[in-house]
């Protein structure tokens, strides 16, 4: 079953993303509030996918992404950004992100992006929620 690690500093966004992924049937194996914690958790949890918020204090999402990719170039990561900024997306892709998620989160498009990267979730685990 595909596993996900969420790196997101804002409580509400973290909860929303968590519940969207969970109710779709993905297994959220960990959540981190900042980049350092996220990098630490990714080492121990080895998730299939890591979602990284762009705007975080101290270490921003791009730095987190670049560090994660340097440690393991096979890492599958998505950047979460509230601004439609093409250069940001370009940069994330250059660093090796598999795609991006626009905030505020919209379940349907978000899950489509996640599915593209790590495949469909386990249907048995999903709540029957029609997004």
């Amino acid at each position: 079953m595909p596993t996900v690690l969420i790196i997101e500093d804002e409580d509400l966004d973290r909860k929303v993303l968590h519940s969207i992924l969970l109710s779709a049937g993905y297994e959220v194996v960990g959540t981190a509030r900042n980049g350092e914690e996220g990098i630490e958790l990714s080492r121990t949890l080895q998730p299939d996918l890591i979602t990284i918020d762009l705007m975080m204090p101290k270490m921003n999402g791009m730095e987190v992404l670049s560090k994660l990719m340097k440690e393991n170039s096979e890492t599958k990561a998505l950047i979460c950004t509230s601004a439609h900024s093409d250069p940001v997306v370009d940069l994330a892709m250059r660093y090796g992100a598999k795609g991006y998620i626009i905030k505020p989160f919209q379940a349907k498009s978000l899950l489509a992006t996640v599915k593209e990267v790590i495949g469909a979730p386990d249907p048995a685990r999903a709540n029957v929620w029609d997004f």
Partner: protein
Amino acid sequence: MTQVLVVEDEAIVAESIASKLRRYGYEVIDTLPTGEEAIEMAGKTRPDVILMDIHLAGKIDGIQAADRISGQFHIPVIFLTAYADEQTIARAKEAGPFGYLVKPFRERDLYVTIEMARERSKLEAELEAANRELDSFSYSVSHDLRAPLIAIDGFSQILQETYAGYLPPDGVECLSRIRDAANQMDHLIEDFLRLSRVTRAPIIIEKLDISHIAREILGQLATSEPDRKVSWKVEDGLIINGDPGLCEIALKNLIGNAWKYTNKTDGALIQVGSIMQGQTKIFFVKDNGAGFPSDKANLIFIPLQRLHSHNEFPGNGIGLATVQRIVNRHGGRIWAEGEVGEGATFYFTFPEGSGQ
């Protein structure tokens, strides 16, 4: 038509107030004898103004009722009471009333007080809406401004790390300048955000030992810059009533400044202490660093106003503006004294009670 709710336990008095109000063209929604009923009616009918007696028939008095009504529904409450003793007035103040009329009062005073309360309540509502808008505005500004900055920095970094070999030394230097500038702007945005948060975050008052906080801040600075030789003297037992988070930000800024501006001073000394002026305790943070021209003392609290170049002493001119807002929100005052080359002293007061 302005709708008024009258809360008064004596029926004859209530009716007399109601008839006066009608004569001035107000609509009296109801006259009620208890605070409990008043809270319920206020929630249901949302009157424009509530006239509230303090002594009421129910379990709660008018002050408690007013407290809940202004907290829940933001309806202006005017107290109408025979009591004008200090204790009652002190309690009434806490409920944030829009007026206080002592019986017997003149009709005209009632009219003027209601009109003033209406106006003030309207202005407060507008201000609150404007603040909310500003909150979401500064949030989106910060995100939308920072995203491109992250891209500028990131692409420059890629150039630096991957393509530095293709560039002459001057080109590599340009890249590092681009990155410095992007980071400088990022800090500026962050500081602006902090300033706007400081202006509106709710204040929670606690007793704070600022001698202790100041020593911790100085200790942290000494650890982060072990090469600097700075001595400090902090008076014991400096206690204020303030919001822990905000006061720490204020002290960090003041002490951080003292630390920064003594950078080029031999025998750098930072003092944190207090003096008594009459009944008022005045706190100070004093250094013997670069100082500033004494006639510019008022300018240094204006955001983005800097008296030194960025090369000489890095900074963006938001720190002291932030400190001033924090002190003002606690109901205190802050001012500065300085001389070029002879250091700066920042004085501030904190009132005994809570601030706004």
